[in-house]
């Protein structure tokens, strides 16, 4: 319940912030630009290190239409996924044993370029297909007692996406929903855990400009 309230307040705060900034500038906004600010829900795929789905993330992107339907732009998103590891013996190396429980966190922060093909431009419902490409910073961390072990990694990132911008009113902003898959080449090692490649599926909901 606490988590749901957090999500609600977070989405409302972002919506209020963006509306407040957007309204005074609408007269200057060109139809050749778009922007999205989203809350996102991420499902790690096959990442045993931290495989619990969560809504601890956001996505920011903006682009410019170089043709009537095709746009290019930039994006940045981030997400945290967690996993509780019950108490167990961890054999660190020959003879060394660590007995503890842990909280794992996988923090992913990809950014780069995006290309998007939008259908029905100028209409209320504007579906699109998109692809993002860039680099991803990812941090593997394990908290146990008062300690933390971490491994910072970098990798190549690619993400296909489908979504729709909805503009119920004559003026922007509108609403945005999307679904994505992402893969990054990040690999890291932490204690006895190893991650090689990071795949995710996720949903986004937010504001469209």
């Amino acid at each position, binding site marked *: 319940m606490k988590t749901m309230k957090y999500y609600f307040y977070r989405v409302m705060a972002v919506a209020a912030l963006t509306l407040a900034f957007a309204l005074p500038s609408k007269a200057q*906004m060109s139809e050749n630009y778009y922007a999205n600010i989203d809350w996102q829900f991420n499902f790690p795929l096959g990442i045993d290190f931290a495989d619990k789905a969560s809504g601890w993330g956001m996505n920011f992107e*903006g682009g410019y239409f170089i043709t009537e339907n095709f746009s290019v732009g930039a994006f940045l998103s981030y997400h*945290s996924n967690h996993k509780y590891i019950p108490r167990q013996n961890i054999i660190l190396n020959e003879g060394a044993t*660590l*007995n503890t429980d842990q909280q794992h966190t996988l923090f992913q922060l990809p950014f780069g370029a995006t290309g998007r093909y939008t259908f029905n431009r100028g209409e209320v419902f504007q579906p699109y297909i998109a692809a993002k490409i860039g680099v991803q910073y990812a941090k593997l961390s394990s908290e146990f007692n008062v300690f933390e072990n971490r491994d910072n990694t970098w990798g190549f990132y690619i993400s296909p996406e489908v979504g729709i911008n909805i503009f119920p009113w004559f003026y922007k902003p509108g609403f945005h929903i999307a679904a994505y898959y992402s893969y990054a080449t990040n690999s890291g090692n932490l204690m006895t855990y190893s991650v090689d490649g990071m795949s995710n599926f996720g949903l986004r909901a937010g504001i469209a400009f």
Partner: protein
Amino acid sequence: MKKVFPILLMTAAVFASCEKEADSDQLDNKFVVYTNYDKSANFGSFSTYYLPDSILIIGDKQEAEYWQDENAQKIIAAYATNMDSRGYVRTYNKEEANLGLQVSYVKSTYYVTNYGQPEWWWGYPGYWGTPYWGNWGDWYYPYAVTYSYSTGSFLTELLNLEAPQGQTEKLPVLWTAYMSGLLSGSTSVNVNLAVQAVNQAFTQSTYLQATR
């Protein structure tokens, strides 16, 4: 639109710093127990051990300080019970003992930065000096030790008192157990959890076994 991109960048920067940390409340708050040992040691060749009746406190004082109250005795008794259950016989005469077991409690890391890693505690004033055990010039670990120090930790070292003596000789540490249990901001020791940690240190060290 010129206004929107800077706003997007600012917003992104703000939220990018918002990595959601894991919920530490879900952790069980028991001690973290780390053990390591000398793989070449024949623990079955030892039969007796000496265990002091006090725990050295590593704190912020220059002189040695020992913990000897009822709580300390419960923790020391846990060590004795486990050593006895592994077939070792406790002796109260140091000269008769094959093994020495020393226990220290890190109350403060005030002096930590003054000493080198990893055996920073060996330089602490009043730390179990090698003369306490016999005629050795220094200590040594026959294996790698990788502790992260924190307040509220117990350091346990099992010493081979059968090792050759002399000021040029070093006293080998055959087994170490590092147990850390205090959460950040706490200053009191949960004796029951400390005893559990001692038991766990032995549980995960099955090689500690005298030949019956």
